[in-house]
């Protein structure tokens, strides 16, 4: 992954999201040791304090846990917790924005639902 330094998203959030994706894709398994702040700093050429901030978010989100003196490890229920949180926070926020735009353009409920269904079908057809 290449960090986007121009994004409105802070670097540490981008790091946390990348680590979550690595866990979801099984590149880092549950129970395994997570990269240290120094490894991440070296990988992405960022200050280790920024990398630590990314790791600490994932501790707050119940994705990682600290073992004293050993570093951070992936929780057993990490994947579940990532999915639940992304659904409740990210996806809901996106839907909120979607609905806001629909209101702005005076798109009725049925039309909006129809658009959603259509796009889902298109995606299924592709895969």
């Amino acid at each position, binding site marked *: 992954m290449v960090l986007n330094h121009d994004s409105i998203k802070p*670097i540490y959030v981008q790091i946390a999201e990348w680590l979550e994706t690595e866990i979801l894709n099984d590149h880092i398994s549950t129970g395994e040791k997570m990269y240290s702040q120094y490894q991440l700093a070296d990988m992405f*050429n960022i*200050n280790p*304090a*920024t990398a630590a901030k990314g790791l600490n978010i994932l501790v707050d989100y119940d994705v990682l846990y600290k073992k004293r003196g050993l570093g951070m490890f992936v929780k057993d229920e990490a994947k579940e917790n990532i999915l639940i949180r992304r659904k409740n926070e990210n996806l809901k926020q996106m839907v909120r924005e979607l609905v806001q735009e629909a209101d*702005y353009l005076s798109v009725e409920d049925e039309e909006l639902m129809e658009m959603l269904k259509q796009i889902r079908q298109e995606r299924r057809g592709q895969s």
Partner: protein
Amino acid sequence: MSVVTCQNVSKQFGSNSVLKDLNVTIQENSITGLIGRNGAGKTTLLQMLAGMLAPTSGNIRVFEENPIDNLKVSANTIFVDDDLVFSPEMKLYEILSSAEMFYDNWDSEFANRLIRYFGFQTGVFHDNLSKGKASTFNAILGLAARTPLTIFDEPTTGMDYSVRQDFYRALLKDYMNHPRTIIISSHLLNELESILEDIMIIKDGTCIVHEPMEDFKTYAIALSGDYEKIEKVVNESRIIHRRFISSNHAYVVVKELSGSEQDCLKQLGVTQTSVEPAELSMYLTNETKGGIDDVFKQS
């Protein structure tokens, strides 16, 4: 622990007041970027920390001592800028070996690797190096000295783009292996920002921003849209920069925008984007809210 403390520090050169009542502290083991316009007082501040200049008034403590004529501070501090003066009779290898004698933590193995990587012949005189090469050599001294307080004043002057990238990466990697307190002043914030922990901005001799780099990235938001609409939500005191693209369409940089204000602006059709730290620091250090465009305004 704080390595550097400045309390009400002022510095005057004749009638020219360069620093005014400056208060800053810098914590141990961090990389701080010192940003400011030409003449803002960056070099004066850094030279005072290194004990090269005394303040006109106020109190400076480095390692809890007064840095002037202080052997403890000199042995634990290196000050690197683009015109370090060495005896004209000294060749590069002699400079390196005298640095080794003076600095306890000097790593000659590391210095030699850097010297080889950047393609130096150590039998030449420092005076005969090109501007970029001299800066690179000085930067190597600053890195290999590994002093608990390492000060770089515009270290990349004259370096080409790839040498600058190499230097920043070398600085970050060596800092992680050997944590220490590093202060680096530069005009080129965008090349430097990712390795910084803290940013300090100096304007007209006072410190206007000193906070973690990650916080600084969300310090302000840029709005683009109908100015009348923007004006309704944002009051004048929070506007950092304002530029009119057409008679009513404006680009405005504002600080402390709340979530509800952001939603409100979004509904009014005002576009919001992030502001790059380099751009933001430029606006913050401008004398007027309109920047150079104000010069061309017919009033």
